[in-house]
């Protein structure tokens, strides 16, 4: 860490020079508060590492709010180095927030030092990079959107009040989302579910409120500029994706109906697959794989095609003259949550469905 020493202002009392100073990292968010004591001021039994209670009894580092009110002492580690106590907050400080370090002297005299974290350098605002499905035509029982942001985002349920569905009249569809946060680990992708209770047949929520999407209508998915990144910066501008709806899709994806365009032997041409419908973008990346004649996984690059209606695979090594297979995970979903195994709502009164075809054999040309 490239440390610099910043003494911002000495507030009250105390000797000159100040017994308090703050060593900070470049951005000022990681600090060490150093308090110098004179001989005999520190208890002789003080060990190199102080407990929080021992440390806070001697000196504190606290947040100062807009009204000038002090928070409780900030969590951190207190260490004694000679006649110094060095305090390092456990968590990063916040840009443009005010803090106060105070030595609590036994004679009632206190010395304080104010510290303001520098302003964060201006960076481009966060943006919506992609939304899947990319199609502008979705089934009326469409289940989920994947929203990709350019930066890690601020988690919290407020997000569900900042993303809206507008109908043809520009009015908000009320309560369309399942309010369960599903972010990727880096918090750059949100999986936004239309409330399944308004999609599932026979469930009371749908019966009372009706479905979120009606067939043959136009809607707009709107992401408000109030959506924040992890640092609290707002989205640069409003994002909108328009789409129209078809009838509900209550059919299973049928891999045996997919079209395979076969590559040439001894080349690295892609194996191309056409689904005949849009499938779930994220699951298409994970739930299709190529295996060789020994059932070993073939290494290569996967690309999900236009409108997520196709898929291609470029092998790392050229295709051999042997029998390969494309293996389909039975959990692969279409846009309405139907899988090769079962439709999203299974009608128990309907005739039993045939088992799905999940292995598609092929041989390069």
């Amino acid at each position, binding site marked *: 860490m490239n440390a610099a020493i910043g003494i911002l202002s000495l507030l009250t009392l105390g000797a000159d020079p100040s017994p308090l100073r703050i060593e900070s990292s470049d951005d000022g968010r990681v600090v060490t508060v150093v308090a110098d004591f004179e001989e005999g001021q520190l208890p002789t039994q003080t060990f190199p590492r102080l407990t929080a209670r021992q440390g806070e009894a001697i000196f504190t580092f606290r947040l100062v709010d807009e009204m000038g009110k002090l928070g409780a002492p900030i969590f951190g580690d207190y260490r004694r180095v000679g006649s110094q106590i060095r305090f390092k907050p456990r968590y*990063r400080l916040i840009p443009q927030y005010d803090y106060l370090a105070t030595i609590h002297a036994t004679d009632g005299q206190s010395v304080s030092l104010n510290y303001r974290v520098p302003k964060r350098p201006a960076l481009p605002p966060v943006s919506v990079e992609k939304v899947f499905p990319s199609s502008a035509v979705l089934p009326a029982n469409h289940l989920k959107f994947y929203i990709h942001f350019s930066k890690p985002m601020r988690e919290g349920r407020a997000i569900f009040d900042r993303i809206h569905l507008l109908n043809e009249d520009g009015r908000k569809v009320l*309560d369309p989302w399942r309010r369960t946060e599903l972010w990727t680990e880096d918090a750059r992708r949100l999986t936004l579910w239309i409330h399944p209770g308004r999609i599932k047949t026979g469930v009371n929520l749908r019966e009372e409120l009706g479905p979120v999407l009606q067939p043959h209508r136009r809607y707009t998915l709107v992401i408000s500029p109030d959506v924040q990144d992890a640092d609290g910066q707002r989205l640069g501008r409003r994002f909108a994706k328009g789409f129209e709806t078809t009838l509900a899709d209550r059919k299973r994806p049928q891999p045996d109906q997919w079209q395979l365009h076969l590559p040439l032997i001894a080349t690295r041409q892609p194996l191309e697959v056409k689904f005949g419908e849009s499938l779930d973008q994220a699951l298409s990346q994970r739930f299709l794989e190529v295996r060789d004649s020994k059932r070993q996984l073939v290494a290569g690059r996967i690309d999900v095609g236009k409108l997520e209606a196709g898929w291609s695979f470029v092998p790392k090594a050229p295709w051999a003259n042997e029998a390969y297979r494309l293996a389909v995970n039975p959990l692969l979903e279409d846009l309405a949550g139907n899988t090769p195994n079962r439709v999203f709502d299974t009608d128990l009164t309907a005739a039993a469905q045939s088992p799905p075809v999940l292995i598609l054999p092929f041989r390069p040309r």
Partner: protein
Amino acid sequence: MLQVRVVVLVFGMSLATSMVHAGQVVKETKTGTPPIKSINVLSFAPEGVLLIGDGSGSQIVVIETGDDSARPKLKQPIADIDAKMAARLGTKSDGIEIIDMAVNPASGTPYFAVRKQDDKRHLILTVDAQGEIREFALNDVPYARVRLKAGEDNISRITDVAWAESKIIAAGRSNETFASKIFSINAPLNHDSAGSVYSAETYHVSHRRWETKAPMSVLIPIRENDKTYVVGAFSCTPVVKYPLDSLKPGAQVKGTSVIELGSGNRPIDMFVYKKNGKPFVLANTFRFHHKRRPFGPSPYWTVKFEQGLLGENKAVNEKAIRRLEGNKPVTDKITMVETFHGVMQMDKLDDFQALALRQNDDGMSLEVLALP
């Protein structure tokens, strides 16, 4: 946001006493810093053993807190608890999210899972009887972890975890598929053991006709006629029970709906308690239809129902007892608890009181409320 108290019940109207000794939850621990990636839920097993549901890490982490004897309990409400916790981390109330709260039944101390929003650090805080907020440090602790695998898919969020007699049960779901799994983990646990984890996919049926997968939000174990059930609550769907012994590898478990609390609500916490010798269940929920059809002054409202309703085996599914017909309450066995309006998180503090995190006009408070 979801957590439950663990209660072992016998439906002959008498409570079974399950004696659990130290070492029955965890057999073999490792001491160090558990590799926790996220904290979705907190709960407690006996003897001060903390259960952490970590969805990003696809694991349950179990920590022996050593906090295993009774301590004085909080008496005075703490106003602006969110701002006070945030200040301890050097930020303001909008800089943190309180994800979950669980009371350690061995000591009466509440534990809070908190996420610092800017750098996404997850941590655990405690509040003592004087209202002092401390961090429960996650370094140098004795812990064991159990990895959860949902067949061919990954679990990305743990929706609840609970102790059930001699097992840990958990509900989890994937980020991308509509799959939902219940896990049953045999105790005592060994660190990194995987052999004793069973999972099953949960379904429910509506109108005796439509069968769908059903992600479970809250679960508690109950015991009925010498059989243990997992009782789960779902968003907008009924309270459903599943036999615990049906959780076998690869099983598909169909639940029985026993109570219909009404649509437009997301259950948050649920626990069982006794009042005048009679067992009840208390459940708080978030009403996402609050603006359209409010049930009270806050979208957070709480319902109390007789625990015996969970034992129903005939009037189930579409015949399950309903709290409302239209907008009108139709049974006195399921009642709204007005003194709990605004309760966002809650847990049982003792036989007479609950600890509640309550949303007020100007912030969040931590309060002790009498059980209704």
